[in-house]
Structures are given as structure tokens and as C-alpha cells.
């Protein structure tokens, strides 16, 4: 099955699942209320966005310099830095570290980049026990699912569903109390931190100036992941750069605001590398894997480079009417929603993933909300143009050539309108059936009748 037919199938299933749509709508409705409250706490939200966009734009446009600065600072404190051009290389680097350490178990904190490179599969295939420590990620891992949303991995599940899952997988007692459910997961996870040989983290930001990895989280799980195992690996895309430590003063509250409607995320930590001489704790070894995986190609695209400004807050998903109605899994991608539809064609090929750019009404709610001002919906339009240039669909191109031919001949156009009006009654008995040429529309919607007298008929008569 092609990616597009899979998407269409999933979209059909998910849009008819009214229960699912209600769950997502309620969850995101609550998000909107707290988000707006936090936005209002900024002195001037629009100038904060502008500053954030300019800061990331600077970082992205001088990525080479900032990456060098970051790496030099990281290495100076003993972190081993690895460069990965693509997913396969990143997996290989990580597997090699794991093998050298003769590791048997891995604990992970939330990282979408590891989803992007399908790291868990590779580690499990190599015989390792891999545990996700973020509660939402832990839940979807138990369900053998990918994260539903880049910030809220299990937002599609109710507490009862999570309770059933825990009863089945962890042998716990039935409860739908959020605190009790969290405690069940915590009990299962605490043991894993202590026995894990390797901790794997992502990064929210990488500070070039100080050579630090900034991780923001609500559960303290990333701190344990990065503190208890002897070896820690941080996997991050090269676009995670922020030039200065001071930039966090804007980006931490901004990410918390747009990500989850919080003033600040509960735990904000800057990691500077492995245990230094004279220090009593911390990991003995720290590795940073910097992943390209087609990001430099996006960097070379002058039109869409700003997509690298993304801080993965998920705000565009939350306001997207497509996402809200088909849900995160329908996309079949690591990054869903508007940002996913924009970048997936760059990460995984335009031809296979252009349908996601078509699956948009171009309403622009994403662009309006994006805290770093990525021109998301216009990029969808550009992806459509690039796809049509690269490999036009013969039927669509012919349709539009005919359309242009007719549109440029007003008499023919008007004649076509009159003919269509004559034939419109014939469509009534077959309305919405396979015989109806307009069935894509008429299965769920009525078509308005063509006017007896068009505007231009009226205008001519009047003159």
C-alpha cells in the first residue's frame, strides 16, 4: 500500500470515529484555555515571537559556526561528539557505543529524534531491553505504538484505557485515578533507572555559547535518565542550536507556553557533559550524536529554511483542523500536523509524502500560532508547486490545462456554464452514487444549483 492510500484509508477511519474526535477536541480545548492564559502573561506576545524567530533565524543561518562552537565547548569538558549524516549512521554510532559498553538495558527520556531514526527497533533487534521513561512514551511503548503527538504521546487514550493497559502489561490493580496511574508507572520505571547501563536523551536546545544540552520536562525522568546510568547518549538534530545561554530566558517559557500552556516546564536542566575530575556523581561518559538526516538540504532551500527554526512545541498540531480530525497516527510520520506535512517531504522524499501538503485547506491557523513564525501553510503550497514541477500528475495537469484554456475564452467558459446548467438536473437521481461525476462532493454535501441568470447575464442585460 502506498503512503497516500494508507493516509486516505486512515483519514476515512479516523474522521468517522466520533469518540476519538471528541477526545482530541476536549483535550485541545483545555490546552487552548491554559495556553492563552500563559500567552497573556507575556508583556507583548507578538514581539516575543518576533524575537524568537529572529534568534532561531540567526542560529539556522550560521549553523556551521554555532555547531563548531557547541562541539568545541562540549569536547573541552570531555563529551564525545559524533556526526551522523543520516538515520542509519546515527543508529550505527549508538549501537557501537552500546556494544562497547556491553550494555544490556537502555533507559530513554523523550526524544522525537530517536523516533525519526527508529532507534528502539534497532536497539531491541540487537538484543537490548529498551524502556521509555516519559509517562506518555512509556504508555505508547507498552501498546507498541508510535507517539500520537510530538508533545503529548498518549493524548488519544483515556484513563480507563491506560488502566486496562497497565493491568494487562504490569499486573496492576484497576484504577482511573491519574495519581495512582502515575505511581504504577513510576514503580515500574524506578527499577529500570537503577539497572540501566545506558541513558539516552534528546535535547530541546543546544547552547553554542556554553556547550550545554538543555532539556525541559515535567516528570523528572530525563534527569534520572541523564544522571544514573554510567553512560549517557544525547541524540539531537543539528537545528536544535541556540546561540546564547540568555536565549533560554525567552525560549524556555515560550516552549512551555505553546507546548502545554505552562509558565515553565517543571524541570529545566542544562547538561554540560560527563562527571568532571573532583565531582562525586554524574555519568562517566557522555556522547552527543548530531544528526543531519536531510536537514542540510532543507537549509539549502532558501524558501523553506525557516522550517529549521521549529522548536517542536506542537502548537501547530494543536490548532490544525486536519490534525484535530484525523489524529496523529493517520499521518504515518514521526512529525505530524502542519510542521510534519512541511518537513516530511524534505526528510523522506517529496514524491511519497506530497499528499500531506495536499491534505490541507491552507487555512493558516498553524502559521498564525507558530511561536517562531515559520511560514507553514505557504510552505505547503510551495511543496505542492514543487511536486507538480518534479512529477506532474498527468490527469491533474490535463485538467488544469483545459481549465486554463476555457478560462481564457470567456465565451467558451460561459457556454460551458450554460451546458452544465442544462445537465445539472440529470445529476439529481444519481446524486452521491458512483455514477455521479461530483460524488466526492455530493456524498456528504448538496451542490447549489447553477443560477438561471448568472451575474454577467444580469450585467449585460442591465447595460
Amino acid at each position: 500500500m502506498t503512503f497516500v492510500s494508507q493516509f486516505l484509508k486512515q483519514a476515512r477511519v479516523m474522521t468517522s470515529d466520533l469518540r476519538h474526535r471528541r477526545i482530541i477536541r476536549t483535550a485541545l480545548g483545555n490546552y487552548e484555555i491554559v495556553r492563552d492564559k500563559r500567552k497573556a502573561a507575556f508583556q507583548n506576545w507578538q514581539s516575543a515571537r518576533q524575537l524568537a524567530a529572529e534568534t532561531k533565524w540567526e542560529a539556522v543561518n550560521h549553523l556551521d559556526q554555532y555547531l563548531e562552537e557547541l562541539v568545541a565547548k562540549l569536547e573541552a569538558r570531555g563529551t564525545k561528539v559524533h556526526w551522523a549524516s543520516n538515520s542509519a549512521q546515527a543508529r550505527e554510532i549508538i549501537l557501537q557505543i552500546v556494544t562497547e559498553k556491553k550494555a544490556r538495558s537502555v533507559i530513554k527520556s523523550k526524544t522525537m529524534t530517536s523516533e525519526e531514526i527508529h532507534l528502539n527497533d534497532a536497539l531491541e533487534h540487537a538484543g537490548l531491553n529498551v524502556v521509555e521513561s516519559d509517562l506518555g512514551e512509556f504508555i505508547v511503548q507498552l501498546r507498541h505504538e508510535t507517539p500520537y503527538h510530538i508533545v503529548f504521546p498518549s493524548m488519544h487514550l483515556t484513563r480507563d484505557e491506560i488502566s486496562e493497559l497497565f493491568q494487562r502489561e504490569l499486573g496492576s490493580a484497576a484504577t482511573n485515578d491519574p495519581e495512582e496511574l502515575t505511581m504504577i508507572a513510576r514503580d515500574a520505571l524506578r527499577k529500570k533507572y537503577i539497572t540501566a547501563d545506558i541513558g539516552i536523551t534528546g535535547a530541546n536546545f543546544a547552547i553554542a555559547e556554553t556547550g550545554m544540552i538543555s532539556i525541559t520536562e515535567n516528570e523528572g525522568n530525563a534527569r534520572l535518565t541523564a544522571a544514573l546510568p554510567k553512560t549517557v547518549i544525547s541524540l539531537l538534530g543539528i537545528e536544535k542550536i541556540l546561540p546564547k545561554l540568555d536565549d533560554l530566558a525567552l525560549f524556555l517559557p515560550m516552549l512551555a507556553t505553546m507546548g502545554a500552556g505552562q509558565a515553565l516546564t517543571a524541570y529545566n536542566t542544562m547538561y554540560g557533559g560527563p562527571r568532571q575530575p573532583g565531582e562525586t556523581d554524574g555519568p562517566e561518559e557522555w556522547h552527543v550524536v548530531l544528526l543531519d538526516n536531510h536537514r542540510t538540504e532543507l537549509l539549502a532551500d532558501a524558501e523553506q529554511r525557516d522550517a529549521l527554526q521549529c522548536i517542536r512545541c506542537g502548537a501547530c498540531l494543536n490548532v490544525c483542523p486536519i490534525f484535530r480530525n484525523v489524529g496523529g497516527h493517520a499521518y504515518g510520520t514521526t512529525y505530524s500536523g502542519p510542521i510534519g506535512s512541511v518537513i516530511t517531504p524534505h526528510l523522506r522524499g517529496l514524491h511519497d509524502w506530497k499528499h500531506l501538503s495536499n491534505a490541507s485547506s491552507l487555512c493558516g491557523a498553524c502559521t498564525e500560532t507558530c511561536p517562531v513564525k515559520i511560514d507553514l501553510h505557504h510552505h505547503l503550497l510551495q511543496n505542492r508547486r514543487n511536486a507538480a514541477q518534479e512529477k506532474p500528475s498527468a490527469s491533474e495537469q490535463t485538467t488544469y490545462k483545459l481549465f486554463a484554456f476555457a478560462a481564457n475564452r470567456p465565451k467558451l467558459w460561459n457556454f460551458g456554464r450554460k451546458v452544465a446548467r442544462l445537465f445539472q438536473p440529470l445529476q439529481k437521481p444519481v446524486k452521491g452514487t458512483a455514477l455521479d461525476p461530483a460524488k466526492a462532493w455530493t456524498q456528504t454535501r448538496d451542490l447549489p444549483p447553477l443560477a438561471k441568470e448568472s451575474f454577467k447575464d444580469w450585467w449585460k442585460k442591465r447595460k
Partner: protein
Amino acid sequence: MTVTLFIPCFIDALFPRAGISMVQILERLGHRVVVPEAITCCGQPPFNSGYWDEARAVAAKVLPQLANADAIVIGSGSCGAMLKVFYPQLFEKTPQAGLAKQISERTWEFSDFLVNKLGVTDLGANFPHKVTFHDGCHGLRELNLKKQPRALLANVKGLQLVEMSEAETCCGFGGTFSAKFPMISTAMGDVKCASATETSAEYIVSNDSSCLMHLQGLLSRQGNPLKTIHLAEVLNQK
């Protein structure tokens, strides 16, 4: 002032009353209205589908029709955005770039023209009904139309405007999107219709006939008595 009225294909073929209302309103305000009859379509369908060469072929015939116009008025946020925002992009680095830019600068969506160019908000209209307003996405986010239609509705006698919670949410039309992804388009439309129904309004008013066609199509099919009407028609009711 001579106002060049751009009649979108939708309004011409399906909703002529919206166009007629605009002519009558502008003439009542003392302006001379001209309609370039050779214009059929702005070229948005091929443009939004990525077929920019074909879109350019259509738009290239539109440009000379509007070359001498002082003020171009369009009763659609969507086609308005095509002329105002996307024509300059479409003709970038072509010999018509300058003309496209000129036309963009002289183009006004109908409500924006009345409120911000003519400074008129009271048209003496009378429409004793409870209505809710749908912000078409192109109008709202490409052309920044939010206050203009509301300023005009505020002066309509007897009219009660009740805002719906999803006023700024897309109706799900999206041009060819509605036919390529009918299930998503319909789901989005259902959200909008439910929100409009909650207000217990009698009419959904908008400045975009294409959105209204989508919503009316869903409402009629579902037997929902809620009706749709173009802003210009409301403003032309006596």
C-alpha cells in the same frame, strides 16, 4: 470614484445575488461600477494545486483587464488574497511582475473597501435576524479582515450578531481539498456547523461564497434549517 468589480467565478455562476448586491451598494454610494466581462476566474484552483504555469496562464489574461483600474473590489477574501497576496508571487521574476504588484496594491476585498477605503460603515440596511459570522481563512489570515465585516454588521438595523466559538476555524472547503479529501473536509465542516448551530442563529454570514457553498451543502444535506448568506446581500437588504 470608478470601482472595478472583480466577479469571482463562484459568484457569477452560483451566487449572482452577492455580485448584484455589491453593484447596487456601490452605486448607491455614488460610485461608477465597471465589470471587466472578459474575466472568468482568478486562477486559484490550479495555483493551489501546485500547477503554477497553468495558473499563470489564467492570471496573465486577468492582469491587462485590471491594468487601468484605480480600485479593484472583490467580494471574496479568497480570490482577494489571490490577487493581493499571491499574484505578486506568481509573477515574480516575470515581465508582468510590476503590473502584478500594482494590481495587488489597488485590490480591496469588499468589506475592507467600504470600511477602510471609503470610510463607510452604515449602509442603512435592515435585516431583522440573528446571525453568526464565519471568518473565511484567506480573508482573516491573508488579508487581515476581522473588524471590517463586523463594523458593517453592527449598523444593520434589527440584526443581532452572535459570535460562535469556532468563528475563526476553517470551514473545511479549501478548494480542491474538499474533493481530494472529502472525509476530512466534511468533518471540518461538521465542526463549524455545530458551532454555528449552538448560537441559535438563523444565518451564517460570510464574505466568502465558496465557504458558504460548502457549509450550505452540509446544512441542506443534514436538514439543518440554518441558512447561509453573503455579507453583501445582508448589507443590501432594506
